[in-house]
């Protein structure tokens, strides 16, 4: 047996024995997500147990180094783990901006001390992180952030406002883009700071969305403080860290959207109109087929991206491609599901309707799709900018 087969066999046995039934085959819906944090909410006891067991092996973050709470797996082993989890329908144990965004940035730019301090708690789901990037005046033009940071007696003192902070009211810590050098060109004056949200200087106010959730917040900084050491990268170099992190965010949004939530579209069509009913509506059928084609293409493209990553031959522009395509397809799919389900399901209580109302946000978050097109035009095609 090769090492890889042995790893697969061991993994299979371990997962069978350790993944509780209540953590398997759960619908991929927001209410089933485990976010951890200092005040965790557990959808079920089984999911709590599942997180603890996975965290103990470092398998919430299989590819991070063991010393920082990871599993120390190589890409191939991580792929095997993912396949074996999928085989038994094991739910992802932990949803976390720490895992998807901050962790990779700390691994790349953090000091050894920062990695030891923050990564293990992210891996175990003990601290929940928020992303403090956007401001009322700085959305697409993110480098225009105005929230200020000054160094006073060995501490950063931060003042200003962030907006669209996902789950800001439920998070423990925030990574924020803060202008620390006001007199230099905008991209060079930003620092990447880490702040504890449990302090008087930080308050949040939830914003209700069209999907009925209030999962974003306005976040206000009023003489908020953090230790001088809580800066990632050099002072004024925060934009480099921010861009690196956005690459991860894009790939994640694209993949999550591309994978889709809820029942496959063809199943919805068969369960509602049925095959004959659908054939009587060729225009609707055509849109459904186009969407299915697009989703199949996305799946294959994601498979190739994983293969390329393994071969160290990634196309650096693929995350933007997946983000753009995945989010548009996902919007169209949720819209079609609504069309199939019929008018009595167009209520705020209906899961599919809420998924439809959530879908436009993905075309905006993580750099809007227009911004992805700008990025592709500039970086992939090297088209000139207007002077």
């Amino acid at each position, binding site marked *: 047996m090769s090492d890889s087969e042995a790893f697969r066999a061991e993994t299979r046995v371990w997962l069978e024995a350790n993944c509780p039934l209540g953590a398997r085959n759960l619908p991929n819906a927001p209410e089933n997500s485990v976010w951890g944090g200092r005040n965790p909410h557990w959808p079920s006891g089984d999911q709590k147990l599942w997180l603890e067991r996975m965290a103990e092996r470092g398998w919430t973050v299989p590819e991070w180094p063991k010393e920082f709470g990871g599993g120390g797996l190589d890409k191939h082993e991580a792929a095997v783990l993912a396949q074996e989890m999928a085989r038994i329908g094991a739910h992802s144990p932990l949803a976390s901006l720490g895992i998807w965004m901050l962790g990779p940035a700390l691994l790349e730019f953090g000091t050894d001390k920062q990695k030891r301090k923050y990564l293990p708690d992210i891996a175990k789901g003990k601290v929940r992180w928020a992303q403090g990037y956007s401001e009322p005046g700085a959305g697409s033009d993110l480098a225009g952030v105005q929230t200020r940071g000054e160094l006073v007696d060995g501490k950063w003192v931060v003042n200003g406002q962030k907006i669209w902070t996902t789950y800001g009211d439920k998070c423990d810590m925030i990574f924020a883009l803060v202008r620390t050098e006001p007199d230099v060109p905008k991209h060079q004056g930003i620092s990447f700071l880490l702040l504890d949200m449990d302090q008087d200087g930080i308050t949040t106010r939830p914003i209700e969305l069209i999907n009925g959730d209030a999962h974003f917040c306005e976040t206000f900084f009023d003489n908020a403080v953090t230790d001088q050491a809580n800066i990632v990268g050099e002072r004024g170099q925060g934009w480099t860290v921010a861009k690196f992190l956005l690459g991860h965010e894009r790939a994640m949004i694209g993949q999550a959207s591309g994978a889709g939530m809820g029942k496959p579209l063809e199943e919805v069509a068969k369960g509602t109109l049925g095959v004959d009913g659908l054939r009587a509506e060729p225009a609707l*059928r055509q849109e459904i087929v186009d969407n299915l084609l697009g989703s199949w*293409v996305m799946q294959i493209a994601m498979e190739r991206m994983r293969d390329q990553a393994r071969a160290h031959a990634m196309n650096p522009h693929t995350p933007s*491609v997946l983000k753009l395509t995945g989010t548009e397809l996902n919007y169209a799919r949720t819209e079609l599901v609504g069309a199939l389900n019929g008018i009595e399901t167009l209520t705020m209580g209906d899961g599919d309707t809420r998924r439809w109302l959530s879908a436009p946000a993905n075309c905006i978050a993580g750099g809007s799709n227009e911004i992805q097109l700008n990025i592709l035009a500039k970086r992939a*095609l090297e088209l000139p900018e*207007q002077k």
Partner: protein
Amino acid sequence: MALVLNDDEVMLADATRGLLDRAAPVSAFRALRDSGDALRYSPELLAALAENGLVAPNIAEEDGGVGMGAAAVAVIVEQAAHNLAAAPLISAAMAAELIGWLGSPGQREALLSAIMTGELVVACALEEAGRHNPAKVETSFDNKVLTGRKTAVIDGVGAGRMLVSAANSDRVGLYLVDPAVDGCIVEAIAAVDGRNLATVRLDGAPAEALGGDDADEAISAAIDLGRALLAAELLGLADHAFDMTVSYLKERKQFDRIIGTYQALQHRAARLYARLDLARSVVLKALRALDEKSDETSLLASLAKCVMTELARDVLVEAVQMHGGIGVTDEFDLGLYFKRVRVSGDLLGDDRFHAERLAQEKWGL
């Protein structure tokens, strides 16, 4: 296999490109087209490709071939598309597939090495409808002769042999015919793209069977291969036209600005880039499936043909539009790609055909 070209495939692509840039620039295709030559491909180019092992490399080693797979053929076809290189590559690979699958030892020996050396062109006459319809086989094989009409025969004009699908008593078989015999009339379709395409009238043409009475599976496999190779050809064509367009956007000035600075054009170009990036994975996936004999091969070949037909068409329409007036002149090369994309797209099924097939067979709709 991974959805990444391996080192051998990358080397093969480079070598093919190098050879074609020397031996078959686009100007050579244009000159051939303008000459009105009936063959519409260049025997010298075919010989040069054959000498380098680039013709039907899918012939198995035990048949004296190089034993490479569909992916390798596609690498060559894709590169040839960039230059519009006039050589019968797709027909050779499809014929090799059919003969390798069905042929008796004697037939394999007589045909395969001659295909590989470029001495013999064998065309596949599988189509009977103007609009692709693989289910239509009304040509009959009875008393050792063929009767019927075939169309869209790639490289049929001047072919040394033809493989014809025909109904026998209760099945569809494949029959080898020498087009020089009485009762076989090959006529050129003067296709807009300058490709060698033919109709074949069979009026009691003597033929011999390839394999037994039932060639269904082999014919389907050859069609899958043909679809995936046409998808690779379309990818090469679309890439080429897209690169021309992006270059033009960087050099043409209007209103004192480089037109590539206009965001309306940037976004349209970026969307095509995104679709090309995605489509590349799909074409490779279909080729890997062919080589691994996966259960989903046929559906993946349809997906690749579907995606590439639609995309190449969109790329060429945008390419012409973004070039302005020059884009619609015959003197400018873009028009050659515009026409080629149309014909390659329609051969073996366009995007609508394959979308419908997938709707029914993949999703049961």
